[in-house]
C-alpha cells in the first residue's frame, strides 16, 4: 500500500488514470473521516503516454481527488473504478493509500 505523510492542514491531490470514455468512474472513500476528507475535484487532460503521445479523441481524462488532512492520525483512502450504473459489479481497478497525518510542527 502506498503511504503518504501529511501535516494537518495539508491538501494533497491524487491523480487516477481515467476510463471515462468506457463508462468507468473512480470513487474514493476514507476510512476515518476525522483524519482526512476526500473530494473529487474534476478531471484533467491525459498526459501523452509512450504509446499515444498525442491522446486520441476517445482518450479518457484523468480523475483528480483532493485529500485534506484534518487531524493527526492515519487513515486509508480506498479508490475503486466502476461503472456507476452497475451497482453490483466488481471494480475494474482499485487502489488503497495510507495517509499518515502529523501535527504541524
Amino acid at each position, binding site marked *: 500500500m502506498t503511504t503518504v505523510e501529511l501535516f494537518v492542514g495539508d491538501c494533497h491531490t491524487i*491523480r487516477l488514470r481515467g476510463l*471515462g470514455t*468506457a463508462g468507468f468512474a473512480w470513487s474514493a472513500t476514507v476510512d476515518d473521516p476525522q483524519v482526512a476528507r476526500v473530494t473529487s475535484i474534476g478531471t484533467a487532460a491525459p498526459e501523452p503516454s509512450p504509446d499515444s503521445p498525442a491522446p486520441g479523441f*476517445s482518450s479518457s481524462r484523468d480523475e483528480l481527488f483532493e485529500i485534506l488532512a484534518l487531524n493527526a492520525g492515519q487513515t486509508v483512502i480506498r479508490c475503486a473504478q466502476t461503472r456507476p450504473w452497475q451497482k453490483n459489479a466488481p471494480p475494474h481497478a482499485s487502489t488503497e493509500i495510507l495517509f499518515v497525518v502529523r501535527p504541524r510542527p
Partner: protein
Amino acid sequence: MRESSSFFRCSKAESSLGILFGKSVRAETLYSPASLVPMGISQRNPCKGVFMEKIRTAGQLRRILKEEHATWTVNPRFKDDDPLPYYKMGGDLSQVPKISSGPRTDISKHVSRLTTNPFLLQRRIERGFVKRESVPGHIPGGSQPVASIPARPMGTSGGAAAAPAPVGAPVVGTSISVDWRNRFGWPWITNMKDQGSCESCWVFSAVGTVEAQTRIEHCIWSLRSEGDVHDGLGVVCLQTGGPATAFDWMKAHGVADPGCWPYEQSNLPYAPTADRSGRTVRLDDYVSLNTIQDQKDWLDTVGPISACFDVYQDFWWGTDVTNTVYTQQSNVPEGGHCIVIVGYDDNLGAWLMRNSWGTTWGNAGYCWFGYGQCNIDAYTKYGVPNTDCNPDPWTKRRIHNGNLYESGDGAGHRNFEVWSVAPSHAIRHYYRDGASLNWALAETFGNDCHASPTVQGTTFNRNFEIIYPTTNHRLHHWYFDQSTAVWNDGGVFGPHHVHGIPAFIQSDYGAPGNFEVVVRTKDSKLAHWWRSSNPVGPWTEGAVFGHDVELSAHTLIQRRDRGLDVVCVTEHGAMQRYWRDDAHGMVWKAGEKFGRHVKTPPVMIEGQFGAANETLQGNYELCVAVHGSIEHWWRDNQGTQTWQMSATFGTNVPGVHVEQVLGLLESSYGFDLEVVALLSNGGLQHFWRSGGTWHAGPVFGSVVI
C-alpha cells in the same frame, strides 16, 4: 509499493509519478514489466515534474526512467532514436475533424443510387432523390405475378415480407423520426455490445456502422468483430483514436466475424483464422457527412452513421440518459467518445444513440441524445454508402442452396450465379449481372456431371465450390480459385453407388470449416461424407442413416447448435427431415415428415424471416416441384417448429411445366426469395417472391435432361 516520502508544504501537490504509473498500463507492449497498478503515487515532484514533458523518442523515455531509478525499462527492441509508437487516430481534441473544417461532401450521388433495399428505394423516391421512371423492374422486360400470399411483417413467423409502399406514392419530405432498431417492420441492428474497459469506442463506432449497413443493403445479419479491426491495427487496449482510422483499415483489409478473431480486452497478438479472406465484409469506401441535414437525410435514406462527442460525467448515469433526452448537466469533462447514431426524432430534438457500454447502460444500451449536446454536431460524422459493403460467403452460407448463389461480384456485389448440366455432361456457369439484371453464359467445364450440382461460396478465399453426382455414380468436387480465376478439379470421392443429388455445405468445424456432404445411395439410405479443411484432408465416410429414401436433395443446413439438418424425399412421396445431434455423439435422427406426392428433390435454406437478431435461427424456406408446379414450404424455427405450405406457383411459359427446383436463395433484394427451376422443355426459369407475391421471371439457358 511504498514510496519514501517527504512532507509537502504546498497547499496542492499533484502526484506526478502517479500519472506515469497510470500511463504504464497503456504501455504494455513497450515496457517490461508491464503489470503495474493503474494508480501510483509519489510526492517527490509536484505539479511540474519531468514526467510532464513531451516525450517523443524511446531514448528520451529511457533517460528519464534511468534518472528516476525506475525499476522498469524501455523494451530493447526500440532504439534511442525510434519515435515512440504513435498511431494517427484522430489526434487530440483540437485535431478531430469539425464539420466546418472541410468541404461539404456531396451526398446526392449516394442517395440517388438504386439501392436494392426496396424500403429505402421507396424513401428515396418519396424524397425525390430517385426518379420513379429510372427504377427498372426487378427483371428487365417486366414480370408476371404467379401467386400471392398475404403479406406479413417480419415478426416471428414466416410467410412474406412486408411490402414497401407502391412506387409512385406521394412525395414527402424529411422523416420526422427514424429508428433503425426496427424500421419498415424489420430489425436492422445487432444486439448491444460492450467495449469493456478498453478505450476502443472509435472501433465500435466504425464497425457498428459497417455492420448495420451490411444488414440494410444486403438484408442479412452479419455480426462483425471489433477485435479484428482493433487488433489488426496493432493497437493495445487503452490506445485511443477516431472512427476514420478504423474505416481506413477496413477499406484496406475488410472486417471479419468474431469466429475469425474475437473482441477481447487482453491485448493478444493478432492471429485471425487462416481463412480470414473468406470471412470479411469488404468495404469499398466511406464518406464524411458535414451538415446536420445531410446527416438526417443519410439516416433516412441510407443508414446509421458514426459520430463522436465530448463526454461529461452525467452521461454515465443521468436519468435523462435512460428515460428522456440527454442534455449536458455536468461540467466535468471525461474525454471524447464515439458511438453509432441509428436514428433521430425531431419531436424530441435528439439523435438516437447506440452506445457500446452494454445493455445495463441507458435504455438497453441506447439513449436519445439532444441535438448539439456535447459538440456532437460539431464533429464530423461518417456514413457507408449503400453499395460499398460486400458481405462474405461465410455470412451468406445459410441463405442459399442448390445451384444458385448470390456472389460478391458485379455492381453492388450482388450478381446471381447458376450452374447447370450441359451437353456432354459438362457444367455451364450462368450469371445475372447485378446492374443490368441480364443473364449471361460464362464458362463451361467438366465432362462427367450427371445431375444438378450444388454450389457453395467458401471461406477458401471466397472460392466457388461445386459438387455433383458423376455418370459413374460417384461425387465430383470442383472449385473456382478466385485468385487465378480458374476452375480446378478437386477430385472424385464418395460412395461407389451414388443414386441422388448431393447436399453440400461448409460447416464451422475447423477454420476453414470442414466440407460436409449428404447423398442418397443405391440402398435407399443417406450417406454422410466429410472433408477436413485445415489441413485439407481426404474425404471420409461419416455415417449412413435413414431408410426408404427416394431422393436426396440440396437441403443441408448447419444449425446454431452446430448440428446438421437435411431433408430428403421418402419412397412414399413425403419429405422428411433428418438431424444430427452433435451434442450427443453426432448421431443422425429422424425428424418430422411433411408434404405429399413429392417426386422431385426439394431445395432448402435458412432465411432471415423469424431471426429477430443475429443469434437466432431463421425459418427454413423450402421449394419443391410437385405436379408441375412449385410448392413453397416454411418451418417456423422460433415458434411451432412445424412445416406449413405457403404458396403454389408455376411457370408462365405456355405448354410446359416445372420439372424440378434447382436452386433457392434469399437475396439482398429486400429479403426476396429467388428460385431457379428446370422446366419440362429444358429451360431454366427464374422465379422470385417479393412482398408476398411470387413472380415468374425470364427463361435463360438450358439443361440437358
